[in-house]
């Protein structure tokens, strides 16, 4: 491990003080194996304690630290700086209003998630013990269950940027996850919600969500299956 000098350009916004966001450059020395989060911690702890950003688990599972680095959405905790070289440009996620510095307002994101009712809906009585699912039935929902709700996908989606009504890839993926779950009985309700101009049909297969997903979930593939399901349901 060796120390290297890097230049970090951060989009800053202090509510009550700044009218609009502005860039601030920090020239600092960090270990070459640092992550983006290490860099932010170094700035926060040693250079400017007013820098605000979200972080929690440091293990790419809580989904708190999604941000835009050199034009791409990443999780700060799992992304090594050598992926971007010695010049970093760090911004809050696109498409969301800024609360402070790198902290964005995710309320609209979670409101959309709630709209598709992200929990098991049962028409029948629940079994006495556990639900039984075959490997094939589990395979159907597969990696769609791995979403950590970091919002990197929705913030990378060009269909989401100009349209705040669009459900976005994360909520639609969650809809897929429950519609295709063999234990769930709420498919019809959810299909009605996603079968809308601001639902699954607003997905233009741009694949930015897939590129941004830190869990490498093939979101567009699942949304395509959802489109087919919606069409089949209306026949």
């Amino acid at each position, binding site marked *: 491990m060796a120390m290297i000098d890097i230049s970090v350009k951060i989009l800053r*916004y202090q*509510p009550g003080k*700044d009218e*609009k*966001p502005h860039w601030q450059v920090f020239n600092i020395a960090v270990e070459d194996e640092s992550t983006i989060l290490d860099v932010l911690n170094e700035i926060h702890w040693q250079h400017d304690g007013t820098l605000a950003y979200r972080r929690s688990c440091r293990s790419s599972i809580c989904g708190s630290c999604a941000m*835009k680095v*050199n*034009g*791409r959405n990443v999780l700060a905790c799992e992304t090594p700086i050598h992926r971007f070289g010695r010049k970093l440009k760090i*911004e809050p996620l*696109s*498409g*969301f*209003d*800024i*609360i402070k510095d790198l902290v964005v*307002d995710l309320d609209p994101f979670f409101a959309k998630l709630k709209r598709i009712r992200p929990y098991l809906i049962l028409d029948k009585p629940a079994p006495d013990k556990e639900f039984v699912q075959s490997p094939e039935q589990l395979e159907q929902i597969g990696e769609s269950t791995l979403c950590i709700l970091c919002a990197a996908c929705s913030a*990378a989606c*060009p269909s989401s*940027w*100009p*349209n*705040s009504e669009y459900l976005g890839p994360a909520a639609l993926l969650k809809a897929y996850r429950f519609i295709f779950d063999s234990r769930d009985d709420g498919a019809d309700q959810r299909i009605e919600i996603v079968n809308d101009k601001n639902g699954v049909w607003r997905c*233009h*297969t*741009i*694949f*930015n969500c*897939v*590129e941004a997903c830190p869990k490498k979930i*093939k979101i*567009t*593939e699942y949304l*395509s299956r959802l*489109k*087919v399901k919606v069409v089949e349901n209306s026949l």
Partner: protein
Amino acid sequence: MYKRTRFYDFTYYNFIGSWAWILHRLAGLALIFYLCLHIWVINSLTHGEAAFNNVMAFLNGVPFKLLETGLWGVILFHAFNGVRIVIIDFFKGSLVHKKLFIVLIAVAFILWALGSYLILQHVQWRAG
């Protein structure tokens, strides 16, 4: 709280999928423009044979033949990327969407070269 303006984020990195989408949209707009132009040209028929022949003579010039090869390219891109989108949405193409883009655009390029050759054969090149 700072309210973000909601528009395309030009600072976001464009991957193959986003380039395909951007170019598909631009090609669509170009085709709408062409359709308007086409209707305008056909409209000249209502002004009689001479007017139509005058317009056609103008359109047979070298600049318009070159533009026609561009139009042929735009049509091919829009059509082949459209096929790619259908394959992605209904035939599991999302798992190979980058390869699909490269293969289909390569086929479109070959057709463009062949078509352009045929179009330019009709150009009345100036002698000299």
